[in-house]
């Protein structure tokens, strides 16, 4: 059984539609009739405000003993952990960063931008009653995360607010650093800097033979026309996010070692009147796993390390 509340069931969720939850009875609660059975046909549609529907269902529900089921799920999680082996030398990996955030923050609103930063956050972030994630899940707008974090802080001054973004997305609305500073918003901006438009780069690695076309954010006029081998010789990143943050009157911290992750977050958490930018230097070709290539069913997800068909089509 699949119990869904407000789910869009679009291509990013279902993968290949004909293979999606083939044997499941699907219950779908949504306030919008147009969202029901639009992409996949559901078995029990419930058109209602989710709050009312869940309340009414809870009134009629009976508690079951599900300890066996929970044990089964835990054993699956042990067998197939989400944490993937990382290639990182420094240990500054998206997993490590988000695990630390999970540990250090209780009352939290976290926004993501779009791309790998969004995918890592949704994979590793703990969502509880006191932790909320805001993300541009529908349109997938780069540049959303940082200004949304500002709005969230203005609306919830007592909550800690963290914005997780990539080096690309951060630059789309970087001018809002001034707004955050003048309005004294102590939000924590975590830039996962890999020097690439990472999600597209990963697709280029997986499906286009590493033809990194227009995805390198370090690329300069002096670089060779064709390059898919990031190295120590690459040009320095422009801008220097730390100096940029400081020029705005905010605090900037660069993290390049795993032991510096926690102190940086704690220092940012302690700020009262101004935002903190923490730039995490992560592996340039860090990948998101698992990943379902477009057109595949969910069961055909790539876990990393497979030999992939170079002719895999991307639509």
């Amino acid at each position, binding site marked *: 059984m699949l119990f869904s509340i407000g789910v869009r069931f679009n291509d990013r969720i279902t993968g290949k539609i004909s293979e999606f939850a083939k044997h499941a009875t699907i219950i779908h609660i949504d306030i*919008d*009739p*147009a969202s*029901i*059975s*639009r992409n996949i046909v559901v078995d029990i549609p419930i058109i209602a405000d989710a709050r009312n529907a869940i309340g009414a269902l809870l009134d009629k529900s009976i508690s079951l003993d599900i300890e066996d089921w929970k044990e089964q799920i835990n054993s699956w999680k042990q067998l197939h952990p989400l944490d993937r082996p990382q290639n990182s030398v420094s240990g500054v990996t998206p997993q490590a960063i988000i695990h630390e955030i999970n540990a250090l923050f209780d009352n939290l609103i976290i926004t993501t931008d779009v791309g790998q930063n969004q995918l890592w956050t949704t994979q590793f972030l703990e969502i509880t009653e006191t932790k909320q994630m805001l993300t541009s899940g529908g349109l997938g707008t780069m540049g959303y995360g940082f200004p949304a974090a500002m709005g969230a802080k203005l609306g919830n001054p007592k909550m800690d607010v963290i914005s997780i973004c990539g080096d690309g997305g951060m630059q789309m609305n970087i001018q809002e650093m001034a707004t955050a500073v003048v309005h004294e918003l102590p939000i924590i901006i975590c830039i996962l800097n890999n020097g690439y438009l990472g999600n597209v780069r990963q697709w280029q690695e997986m499906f286009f033979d590493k033809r990194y076309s227009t995805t390198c954010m370090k690329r300069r006029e002096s670089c060779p026309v064709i390059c898919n081998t990031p190295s120590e010789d690459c040009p320095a990143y422009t801008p220097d996010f730390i100096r940029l943050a400081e020029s705005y009157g905010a605090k900037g911290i660069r993290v390049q070692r795993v032991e510096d992750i926690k102190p940086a977050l704690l220092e940012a958490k302690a700020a009262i009147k101004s935002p903190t930018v923490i730039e995490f230097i992560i592996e340039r070709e860090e990948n998101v796993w698992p990943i379902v290539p477009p057109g595949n069913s969910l069961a055909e997800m790539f876990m990393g390390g497979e030999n992939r068909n170079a002719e895999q089509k991307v639509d």
Partner: protein
Amino acid sequence: MQNKRWISLFVENEVGVLARISGLFSGKSYNLNSLTAGTTEDTTISRMTISLTSDDQTFEQIKKQLNRSIEVIKVLDFSETDIHMKELMFVKICNCTGEDMMEINRIIDVFSLELIDSDTHTALVECVQTENKNNDLINLLIKNFGGRVEIIRGGSVAIEAIRLSES
């Protein structure tokens, strides 16, 4: 399976509603055949008759999307309803010989049309009948008069029948 369907919409008589409805069809690539609109006995409400072609699932989605629009008051699906439906069409046939004119008059009689304007070589016929009958008429006219036929179709207007219906 793609079928032709008819719906009638009650919408607020506001600037931009027509653009919203037609934009919905074009934006989502729904196959709109014809759309007519006009006010009703209530000047704040307009009524639209829409003909479209789609399969069942898409048709359900179209009705839901229309219902979702703020300006749409009511959506009537005419698939299972008896309706009266008529389309206004003007046809002009040019370069007519005397024989052509006689043929045109015969057609007018058979189809119960009206010759509303003419000179010695041109006839303008007004046709108010169902879309299917207009289709038949066009085929006939083109067969008889080829490229000398000029047509303007107004799209159909439909309303629920009281007792009788025509197809």
